């Protein structure tokens, strides 16, 4: 109240200096709301640690900048045997760690072996299918137990990055210069990186544990170069400002959100009920509640994923059709149901909207809010509430990383199911198994499109939305977009500063 009468200038405080070619130098500063859990690639499995671990450890294969296509990184080339069991990779010439030591083929075998030896590493499932790793000279051969066309993506996961015993030298574009746990980490450019000439930043500074609203204040004051996933009021404000709009970057990443309907429980054992709920939910309203930083879903595969059938449209908001289907299933008067969500402001907002939409078709929803750890346990349990908010973030940009864990019958387990709907369909299982073995990309995509149709019709989830990653950058941050897999990848980013390395005022 005291300050509302003194309006302040809230557009960008700096502008791009206007260099025509990328300028070397400078420190890019950003902050995260959480903290680094570990810098050990054999353990790292959370978003925030990944920002650093990915920047510090490079892998045999990587993603093209801003895309999901695999390209050779530490490998120069790769090929797969006709039976799909042996992947052979030749190492790139002259690759070295940040301390100058050469990267050897055996270092990759060592990294895989480390994951196997850590009893509580979550990365175990990814190495389970690797029968052996043979390192000979500059060549590596991975032999699988059974064919898996998505295996190359595993070779782009950071735990496969080369490592040596008792060394934390970096194989990636940056190396850790200093980490004050819980406070900040400073990364310095790795001069020995194979693509170092294209890396322009001198350093990256990431501050930990800065609440989102404070991040935005810091960003506005010019203390941060990038701010991400803003609190909704800040997001709505900034996207409404013409001066900021060119610097708002939104990108679909590898996630899907909706509600699981446990098909083993009444009334969700009836497909018509599940379809009815899909018709009853107004997805456009969901998108509004998310500030527009999302796209409506027709299934679990997000836009851009090979195998996604872009011709399928999300279930339309059709109250009459929903009522008709409910009546046909014997629920003309609707039913009462508990809906479980994690304790979270956004989940609350969306659940309220779902509750109103379903009330329109006679389904009376009672919302139960649980702390995340309790929610996660109940979601994975066959005895948890049959109707619950569900989401999935894939490990790599391949349909197999979405469909197999979420809808394959082998992912069902009574108290640890990643198949949250407990959906078992032999036809879908056969399709997924076939697709996993299929080496031909086009044929594989066609198989997944058929799987998409089955899931669309069977509707084990109430399909809702794919959330976008939204970042705003200062005007002088160039060649940067959020990455669909890594979310934040500043490898080729540069700062458009003046000749003295200073930021330029508008």
């Amino acid at each position, binding site marked *: 109240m005291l300050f509302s009468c003194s309006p302040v200038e809230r557009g960008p405080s700096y502008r791009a200096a206007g260099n025509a070619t990328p300028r070397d130098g400078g420190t890019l500063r950003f902050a995260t709301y959480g903290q680094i859990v570990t810098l050990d690639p054999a353990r790292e499995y959370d978003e925030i640690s990944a920002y650093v671990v990915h920047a510090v450890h490079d892998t045999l294969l990587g993603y093209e900048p801003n895309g999901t296509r695999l390209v050779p990184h530490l490998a120069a080339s790769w090929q797969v045997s006709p039976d799909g069991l042996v992947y052979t990779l030749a190492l790139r010439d002259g690759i070295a760690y940040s301390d100058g030591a050469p990267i050897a083929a055996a270092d990759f075998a060592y990294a895989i072996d480390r994951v196997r030896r850590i009893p509580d590493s979550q990365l175990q499932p990814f190495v389970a299918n690797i029968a052996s790793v043979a390192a000979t000279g500059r060549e590596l051969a991975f032999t699988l137990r059974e064919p898996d066309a998505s295996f190359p993506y595993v070779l782009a996961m950071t735990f496969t990055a080369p490592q040596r015993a008792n060394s934390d030298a970096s194989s990636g574009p940056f190396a850790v210069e200093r980490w004050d746990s819980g406070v900040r980490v400073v990364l310095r450019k790795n001069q020995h990186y194979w693509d170092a000439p294209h890396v322009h930043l001198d350093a990256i500074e990431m501050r930990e544990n800065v609440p989102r609203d404070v991040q935005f204040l810091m960003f506005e004051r010019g203390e941060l170069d990038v701010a991400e996933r803003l609190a909704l009021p800040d997001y709505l404000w900034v996207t409404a400002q013409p001066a900021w709009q060119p610097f708002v970057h939104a990108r679909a990443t590898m996630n899907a959100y909706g509600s699981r309907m446990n098909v083993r429980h009444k009334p969700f054992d009836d497909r018509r009920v599940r379809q009815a709920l899909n018709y009853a939910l107004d997805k456009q309203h969901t998108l509004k509640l998310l500030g527009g930083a999302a796209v409506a879903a027709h299934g679990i595969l997000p836009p851009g994923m090979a195998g996604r059938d872009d011709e399928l449209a999300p279930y339309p908001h059709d109250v009459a059709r929903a009522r008709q289907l409910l009546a046909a299933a014997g629920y003309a008067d609707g039913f009462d149901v508990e809906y479980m969500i994690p304790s979270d402001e956004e989940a609350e907002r969306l659940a309220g909207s779902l509750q109103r939409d379903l009330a329109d078709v006679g389904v009376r929803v009672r919302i139960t809010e649980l702390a995340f750890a309790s929610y996660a346990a109940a979601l994975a349990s066959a005895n948890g509430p049959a109707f619950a908010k569900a989401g999935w973030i894939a490990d790599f940009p391949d349909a197999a990383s979405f469909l197999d864990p979420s809808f394959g019958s082998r992912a069902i387990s009574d108290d640890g*199911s990643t198949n949250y709907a407990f959906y078992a369909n032999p036809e879908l299982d056969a399709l997924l198994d076939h697709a996993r073995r299929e080496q031909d990309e086009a044929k594989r995509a066609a198989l997944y499109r058929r799987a998409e149709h089955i899931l669309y019709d069977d509707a084990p989830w109430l399909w809702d939305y794919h959330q976008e990653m939204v970042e705003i950058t200062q005007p002088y941050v160039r060649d940067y977009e959020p990455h669909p897999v890594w979310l934040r990848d500043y490898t080729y980013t540069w700062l458009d500063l003046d000749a003295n390395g200073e930021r330029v005022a508008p």
Partner: protein
Amino acid sequence: MIALVVRRLGWAILVAWFAATATFAAIAAIPSDPVRAIAPHATPEVAERMRAYYCLDRGFAGQYGCFLAHLARGELGESVRAGRPVTHVIAERAWPSLQLALAAIVLQLAVGVPLGVVAAARRRRWPDRATAAVTVLGQSAPPFLIGTLFLYVLAYRFGWFPLGGYGSGFFDRLWHLVLPAATCAAPGVAYSARTLRSDLIDALHADYVRTARAKGLSERRIVIGHALRNALGPLASITGLSFGLLVGGEVIAEYIFAWPGLGRELLLAVLDQDGPVIVGIVLVSALAIALANLAVDLVQLRLDPRLRE
């Protein structure tokens, strides 16, 4: 004297053990699964292996047995989330929290004592009323509100302080310390000012003060030299009690100001249901509060000879 210290130390350990056990039981009673929360993609086999590793596959007695076995070896188990010893986590986070606690106590005394003295000396006049307003605010406004206000007004609008962070180097650290310490100290300032005011007012009515007045001592010497000295005992016990308040304030202040201490670590651990970390921090905090109170008691023994009997 030594017997007293030993006895009180024994009590401190007992209190800490009780707090840790109660927390342990509360966590075990909640139907939640840290493995699922931390590893939502884990296959059943991996989840089972993780649970076995963290003793989570056993009943309450089994889990508590694991905890005691760790404790006997001087360990507190491993963080489920980070996969590293809880003792390391605590060692890393304890110093920032201690700095914050000490700064808050210093601030609490540096602001609370003068406020209390002024209010008592100028009773029912404007300094007293102004102090009452400040203390009511400090006591009734929750720390998250005070912290957010400090951050927004003093750091963001006026730019006098940084928008959170830990700082590096002595002066930079101090500068970063002011707002979180003020947030933690706010309830304590109010508490000590009000208590000191009423104790001082009582003292100012005592016979020895009348004698001092009769001798013709100045009001300043009466208040500071005679009455204040007698009101210090209760102030010391208030300060001891406020260590308990501080722990709660630190959780909030550390979160708002990105201060890398135990409080924020505790908050993160609660969100993840990371049991070993929660129990470890509760144990250490309880021990710290008990020891701080012991220290306060020793100070009181010094201040008031009557207690020594």
